[in-house]
């Protein structure tokens, strides 16, 4: 605390206590303008047309100020290092200081010169009396943030204040968000490229601020500084200035926003943040709301880290429903403090209760985001765009390998129908479309219901259950056997594929549903953004997106069925159809084989053994059923009973799989089998040496400054496998990983794993794959979902 300030304050104190000053006096109270400054302003007016005169005067003024402050602040020599830095802030690009007794303010540019077409940062620096404070953009229960009014020449622009993270300042039962000691408000300034080199830039600002101890004083000050312009980049700033700006930047929140959850209709409210986004071993965590009204500023914020999630309990404020659910998490840990912007607006749909109209103060507590870039990928994806993507995605689904087998059946059915009338075909096409849409609607409702229940789900989740996978394999074996001609599917079964024209509608409906069912795993890579968007929307929008996806998928067949011209081009039925039908049984068997391979990852050799036994029993049961049709009397009864027994046994084997699947039942390590680092994860046998993903490993490596590459994959995710094959397993990539001493963390989402679900949610995703590169000390960078060798190498280089 410089003695000069204390003295000044004592002198000013009677003024501050003056009982009832009039309005004019009140607003002027805080303004302190030394005589020299007034003189300077008078001089400036007469010289305003001559830049050179301005510069000369500014140099003179700087000299004068240095003399004045040197004599006014005899204690300088014995001050803290910070105060010494302050004392030498003079010269080009530095304004005069405004000292009010409660704080000293100065506007300082990062450098004295700037190149046209480039940017520079300014800092409005406050050195505040001990025990006094100024305010953050949301001041909390009382107070007011500083405000700046600029006067700039055309071609020069400034951005909003980049607010450093605040502290919680308790005042009795109330609390404020603000700053004590020194605070530097950074403001970006840009200069147009047409600015004539050599012509100085004059920057003027008027600032008002409130400074409080228990009581508050509104103050204001005028700041003027001159920047030189040169063709080259800014000159090196002096060391004190560089340090000031480095310290200021260290207090800025990190860029990007963490997607969080906040149930605003509840009291207390629960804030959930993926722990992977936090620094390791936090010692204290505080949440600062961006806007007034969201939460009770003074309330305690108990928190706990439950594996993959930080859970924080917040007390709602006066208008939680209408305040933005965004803010800053200020996390203290062994190595310092980090401020992380958090955004829970994707859970807006969960807000409930009467919405109090919040009067929006246009200046205070506004500026959410502060122009920070966002990493919430689909934040910008509006509903119309999402619907378009959904439609296109649905169309593309028809070309997917996991849909093709079903479509093949459908093509066959259509060929049979080319003889029939338009009305019949239209009914068939509509039934198919209805089947697709029904399935999508069902999944959407299920997904929304599960979301409402708080379950950690994601697209493709149905394939995370081993039982489901086995049942799918059964289904495809049955279809294959039917197509191959080994069995005839009766009306009792679904009547898929082989269904004749007479009972075609149910068949078409079921074919549509089946096509959609098996398409789900293919939608994740193509529809990541649209589905991520849908999952975060209120339910009508979510349903609309998912149904549009279904419509896109059904559309080609609907058109084919409705258009006689297109239908006429289809070949006439004949003997070739029988061969084609038999040929098409092989994609069915292939799909069943693929599902068994997925199962081998989920449930291990025992699971596969059980599934194979189940498949044999299923085939036996189906054959017995088939045989019983030809048989008579008692033999028929025996065959039917045996068939029933075999089918029941097959079913039991499938359903019994769930609890025996490793990782599925223990909530801990989830899908990564065991905690031992291993190289052979299911979704790729070669490639760089990987370690199973855990939030702790990620955090530890980040803390140690080691670069990290995160790959979230699943055995049933074809895109993931292709990416590993064509990009991640390439020798160049393996070498680059090794050369950079990169920690390669691989998360396996084949089975449900809440930690991975949370990690995905942190990036606004609901499915795999996701590839994230954390360069040492830098922000995480999300790579595209379709990788090439060069994309990976480029990302690593940067």
């Amino acid at each position, binding site marked *: 605390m410089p003695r000069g300030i204390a003295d000044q304050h004592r002198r000013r104190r009677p003024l501050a*206590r003056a*009982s*009832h*000053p*009039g*309005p004019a006096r*009140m*607003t002027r*109270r805080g303004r302190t303008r030394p005589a020299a400054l007034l003189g300077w302003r008078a001089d400036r007016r007469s010289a305003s047309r001559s830049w050179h005169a301005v510069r000369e005067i500014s140099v003179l003024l700087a000299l004068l100020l240095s003399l004045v402050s040197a004599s006014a602040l005899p204690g300088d020599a014995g001050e803290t290092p910070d105060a010494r830095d302050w004392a030498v802030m003079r010269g080009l690009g530095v304004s005069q200081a405004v000292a009010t007794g409660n704080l000293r303010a100065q506007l300082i540019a990062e450098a004295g010169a700037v190149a046209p077409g480039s940017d520079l940062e300014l800092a409005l620096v406050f050195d505040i009396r001990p025990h006094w404070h100024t305010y953050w953009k949301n001041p909390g*229960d*009382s*107070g*007011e943030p500083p405000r700046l009014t600029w006067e700039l020449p055309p071609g020069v622009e400034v951005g909003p204040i980049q607010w450093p993270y605040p502290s919680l300042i308790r*005042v*009795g*039962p*109330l609390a*404020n968000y603000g700053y004590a000691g020194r605070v530097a408000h950074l403001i970006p300034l840009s200069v147009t490229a047409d600015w004539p080199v050599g012509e100085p830039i004059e920057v003027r600002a008027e600032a008002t601020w*409130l400074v*409080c101890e*228990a*009581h*508050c*004083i*509104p103050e204001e000050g005028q700041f003027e500084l001159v920047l030189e312009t040169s063709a080259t980049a800014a000159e090196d700033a002096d060391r004190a200035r560089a340090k000031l700006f480095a310290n200021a930047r260290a207090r800025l929140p990190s860029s990007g926003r963490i997607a969080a959850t906040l149930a605003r209709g509840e009291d*207390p409210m*629960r804030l959930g943040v993926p722990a992977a986004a936090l620094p390791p071993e936090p010692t204290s965590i505080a949440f600062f709301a961006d806007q*007034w*009204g969201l939460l*009770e500023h*003074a*309330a*305690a914020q*108990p*928190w*706990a880290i*439950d594996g993959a999630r930080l*859970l924080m*309990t917040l*007390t*709602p*404020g*006066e*208008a939680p429903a209408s305040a933005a659910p965004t803010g800053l998490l200020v996390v203290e840990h062994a190595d310092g403090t980090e401020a992380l912007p958090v955004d829970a607006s994707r859970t807006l749909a969960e807000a409930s209760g*009467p919405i*109090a*109209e*919040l*009067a929006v*103060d246009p*200046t*205070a*507590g506004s500026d959410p985001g502060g122009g920070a870039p966002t990493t919430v990928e689909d934040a910008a994806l509006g509903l119309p765009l999402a619907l378009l993507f959904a439609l296109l995605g649905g169309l593309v689904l028809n070309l997917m390998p996991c849909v093709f087998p079903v479509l093949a059946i459908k093509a066959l059915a259509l060929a049979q129908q080319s003889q029939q009338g338009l009305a019949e075909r239209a009914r068939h096409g509509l039934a198919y479309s209805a089947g697709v849409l029904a399935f999508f609607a069902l999944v959407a409702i299920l997904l929304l219901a599960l979301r409402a*229940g*708080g*379950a*950690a789900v994601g697209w493709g989740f149905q394939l995370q259950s081993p039982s489901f996978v086995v049942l799918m394999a059964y289904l495809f074996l049955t279809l294959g056997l039917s197509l191959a001609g080994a069995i005839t599917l009766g009306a009792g079964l679904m009547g898929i594929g082989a269904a004749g024209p007479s009972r075609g509608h149910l068949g078409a409906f079921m074919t549509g549903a089946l096509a959609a069912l098996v398409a789900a795993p293919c939608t994740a890579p193509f529809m990541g953004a649209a589905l991520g968007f849908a999952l975060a929307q209120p339910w009508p929008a979510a349903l609309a997106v998912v149904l549009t996806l279904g419509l896109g998928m059904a559309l080609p067949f609907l058109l084919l069925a409705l258009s006689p011209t297109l239908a006429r081009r289809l070949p006439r039925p004949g003997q070739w159809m029988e061969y084609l039908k038999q040929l098409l049984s092989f994609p069915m068997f292939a799909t069943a084989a693929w599902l068994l391979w997925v199962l081998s990852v989920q449930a291990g050799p025992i699971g596969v053994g059980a599934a194979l036994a189940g498949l044999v029993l299923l085939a036996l049961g189906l054959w017995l059923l088939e045989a019983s049709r030809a048989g008579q009397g008692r033999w028929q009864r025996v065959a039917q009973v045996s068939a029933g027994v075999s089918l029941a046994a097959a079913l039991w084997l499938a359903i019994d799989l769930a609890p025996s699947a490793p990782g599925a*039942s223990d*909530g801990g390590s989830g899908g990564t089998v065991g905690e031992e680092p291993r190289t052979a994860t299911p979704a790729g046998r070669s490639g760089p040496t990987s370690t199973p993903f855990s939030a702790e490993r990620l955090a530890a490596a980040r803390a140690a400054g080691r670069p990290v590459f995160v790959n979230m994959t699943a055995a049933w995710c074809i895109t993931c496998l292709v990416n590993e094959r064509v990009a991640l397993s390439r020798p160049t990539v393996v070498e680059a990983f090794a050369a950079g001493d990169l920690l390669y963390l691989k998360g396996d989402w084949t089975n449900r794993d*809440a930690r991975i679900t949370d990690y995905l949610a942190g990036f606004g995703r609901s499915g795999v794959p996701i590839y994230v590169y954390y360069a040492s000390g830098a922000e995480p960078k999300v790579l595209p979902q379709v990788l090439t060798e060069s994309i990976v190498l480029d990302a690593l280089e940067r």
Partner: protein
Amino acid sequence: MMLRLETRLAAVLTAVALCSLSGAALATPEVDAPAPAFTGVDTAGKTWALEDLAGQPVILEWTNHDCPYVKKHYGAGNMQTLQREATDAGYVWLSVISSAPGTQGHVSAAEADALTAERDAAPTAVLLDTEGTIGRAYGARTTPHMYVIDEAGTLVYMGGIDDRATTDPADIPAATNYVRLAMSELEAGQPISRPVTRPYGCSVKY
């Protein structure tokens, strides 16, 4: 499993939160709900209780004469005008001083009356809430912090006096006065368009 764990954790967190809050702080009253009951003594020693005021609309104004934000509105005559408008329309206007002894804004009954006379203020009464009981019941955070209660005893407005959170009296003419807005909407039988706003000012010195 995961879900159950979360639920349990949430319960523990909630319990912790409630315990830590119990000794504390401020209630947050709700608009469209009965206004919190209070009893207070004015500068003349008269006791005022909300229940006794049934059938009359009430305005509560938290104040601290040394606060620059309060001075903005009294210095320009804005608060006095509003007080006269309200009392003429049948409102009971209670100015509440919740400053604890020794803090800014704390006054004796005589000083409070002198302030009223000096500023030509026109509240129905000035309540001396030295213990901060009424302030805490209403969650009063700032001076000024305004509350409007209708004839039925329902809290219909809480928040700032207007939409210009500054200390500059020059902002008053162009500001939207939320109390005046609530009064006119109440009279017209309309719903209150802005029932909750951010109060601005100095903190209440509990």
